[in-house]
């Protein structure tokens, strides 16, 4: 009697254990999004989750934990139960938290980076009428003009300490010029509108997707893209990179996935494999192309190194140059 009981118990235990190991994921997953529903990050994550669902065979619930400039959501990822059922999207703003001293989880070491999905380069985009008036045709002219008029050229980023605001500071460092950065708390769209109108600011340092409608209409002209290569599509294909014009500026916003520290290795590998496959999902690729977002996949180890470089070197220097006083 006792023996049978023991055997049954053992059997149950083994079954349970194997079930837990083999059948991850056995329930729905949660993806934390630190930004609001309907925004760029949110739609990117939702599109990716649809692709990932096909790989994992479970539904993924996108949980928008917003507030405090993304801090709440990023902290929620680090705080999550490391059972592999919760992951989240980490975005560029995360590497500024250390310098701004706004989060308890200041550094990338509090996270377990999974992969980077997307990167969109910033561009130096100016009002066309203003450029023509001052004889600016390319990036070299622009830099020369800025050197002749230090601190007079007004460029718009989006909100304070945001990725495009810091982009201006980065460019100032690389090109050795002084710009006046103007913040637009409502977001990049209003900065682009003001630049297209040519009042208040002369140009913007946002991504091309944000400025697209006015570049197409000819109100704005992009002088240089801060990327390694040109964007391969018919609208932006003619826009030169900064590198082509002799300025080694590489700056982009990025979005990636992260786990809380301490997730079981087998589960982690399974999730990483699923992500690798999901990035190639045709629906996801189609979505990203249409939305004007670039896919820039990085494996976990590379992503970690990338985060380290951003947090330790690039971003603090650019923030200092942008005049962000901490």
């Amino acid at each position: 009697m006792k023996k049978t009981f023991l055997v049954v118990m053992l059997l149950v235990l083994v079954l349970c254990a194997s079930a837990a190991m083999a059948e991850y994921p056995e329930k729905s997953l949660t993806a934390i999004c630190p930004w609001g529903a309907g925004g760029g990050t949110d739609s990117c994550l939702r599109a990716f989750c649809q692709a990932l669902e096909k790989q994992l065979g479970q539904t993924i619930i996108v949980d928008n934990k917003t507030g405090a400039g993304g801090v709440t959501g990023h902290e929620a990822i680090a705080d999550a139960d490391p059972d592999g059922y919760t992951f989240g999207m980490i975005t560029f703003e995360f590497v500024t938290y250390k310098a701004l001293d706004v989060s308890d989880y200041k550094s990338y070491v509090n996270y377990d980076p999974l992969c980077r999905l997307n990167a969109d380069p910033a561009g130096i985009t100016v009002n066309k009428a203003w450029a023509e008036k001052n004889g600016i045709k390319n990036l070299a002219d622009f830099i020369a003009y800025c050197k002749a008029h230090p601190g007079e050229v007004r460029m718009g980023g989006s909100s304070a300490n945001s990725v495009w605001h810091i982009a201006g500071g980065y460019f100032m460092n690389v090109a050795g010029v002084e710009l006046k950065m103007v913040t637009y708390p409502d977001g990049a769209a209003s900065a682009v509108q003001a630049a297209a109108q040519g009042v208040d600011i002369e140009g913007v340092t946002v991504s091309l997707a944000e400025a697209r409608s006015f570049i197409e209409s000819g109100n704005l002209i992009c002088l240089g893209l801060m990327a390694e290569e040109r964007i391969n599509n018919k609208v932006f294909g003619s826009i030169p990179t900064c590198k082509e014009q002799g300025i080694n500026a590489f700056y982009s916003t990025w979005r990636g996935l992260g786990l809380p520290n301490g997730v079981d290795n087998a589960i982690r590998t399974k999730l990483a494999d699923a992500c690798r496959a999901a990035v190639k999902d045709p629906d996801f690729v189609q979505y990203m192309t249409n939305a004007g977002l670039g896919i820039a996949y990085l494996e976990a180890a590379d992503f970690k190194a990338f985060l380290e470089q951003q947090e330790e070197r690039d971003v603090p220097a650019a923030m200092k140059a942008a005049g962000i006083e901490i």
Partner: protein
Amino acid sequence: MNWSLLFESYANVFTSIQVIGMAFLGSLGGILLGAVPGMTATMGVALLIPFSFGMDLIPSIALLLGIYCGGMYGGSISAILIHAPGTPSAAATLLDGYPMCQKGQAGRALSIAMFASFCGGVLGALVMTFLSPMVAKMAMKFTSAEMLMLAFFGLSVIVSISGKSIAKGLISAFFGLLLATVGQDPTYGAKRFIFGFRPLLSGFSFIPTLIGLFAIAEVIAGVERIINGEEKQQKSEEKITNVLPDFSTIKKIWPNIISGGLIGTLIGAIPGAGGDIAVFVSYGFNKSSSKHPELWGTGIPNGVAATESANNGCSGGAMIPLLSLGVPGDAVTAVLLGAFIMKGIQPGPMMYVNELPTVYRVFAALMLANLTMLIVGCAGVRFFAKIVSLDKKMLYPIILVVSLLGAFSINKNVFDVGVCVLFGVIGYLMNKFEFPLSPILLALILGPMCEQNFVRFVDVNNGNFWEILHRPIAVGFFLVSVATILFSIYNQQKINKKESENRKKANGEVSRIP
């Protein structure tokens, strides 16, 4: 204007079963979403975007526009029935809608709100169809100086919604403006009034604050009234024979509907200004131009009509800069922009050149969405009006738990539930001591807009504020605002005088009785 193409597009949209079905589905969902405090049209639109992946552009746009229009009207349902605006754009509807409900005219208020919403929406859609390029050109001109003065103009309305004591109204308004500065400052990111609460970095979230000030405060006050035996049970004696307002009412409210719809459309067209501002401006304007300003706020149909037509006019207005400039006018259109881009269409000046049939179909879809909203709304009026006849002793706790969940769901943050409760207490105390609540709300909406544009304007002009004299639109808005303030003060004194005469008469009659 290419008429044959326009007619063709309308015919195309209005005969497609799929598009009509989607618009119906959208309006139904939008009305229900809008009616729950804390669930907004933005959220609904954002959540449905992944579902519209597989659809063609026009059906998916019809679905999203249905939610947008339905949500605008839906917010007024809870504003009228339970004193909790379902969306920020319905915040001014409760000024007259809730008193109407208390007078036992809930069904009437709902049908007026629906009819005004429909008319406002149609007006917006018409302006969008015929005047888009003109309005877009105007909207483009709005940069920091103009936005600053637009915000100031919005604030000038405060005097007319202050109630009897202008001093108290302005204290509320400045308190609201002060609350709006909590969190990181918009220009430099400096921390202000944080006191170590990290969630406060982005300030008090607007919707939890709104729910707290109105819904939670009303629940607390309701409990007090019930215990003191002052609560009257509203019986639904009202027989809803006709779900649309009768002809004599329409005759009375049509000027408010027209002016509200136009104000809504124009303000909605300005990027960064939306329904929440338009409703107050429309309410203030219509109250000032009314022959009986003293009746406003006591539950008259004109008040409901003026605000509801304004917020639905906004939906048409906000589409103008979206389509013709590629600049979203508010949060919902920002999401819609994403929907267009996802289908490979970039809204903007080039869209009118390359994709004119699509543009016209979007116009038609907006018209259709308004129509389906009217039909769904008509069907719902009787049902919604029943809510007031529920036992108040059951209703208050239900409102409480539903509202607090709404406050939570905006940011998925328990801190916001706390904020909601805090403002519930503040709202309860302010009601007790007769400080008006609406100025706080308007100040919370306009405060950040006012500050950030002021700081930016001074910054880009290197500290010279008087540069603003070179901006004619801004100067115009400033003059109009000053005129509004002076006129409202004059109006309020007239109202107070009339009221005190009435009281004197009433007192006299009492003393005459031996």
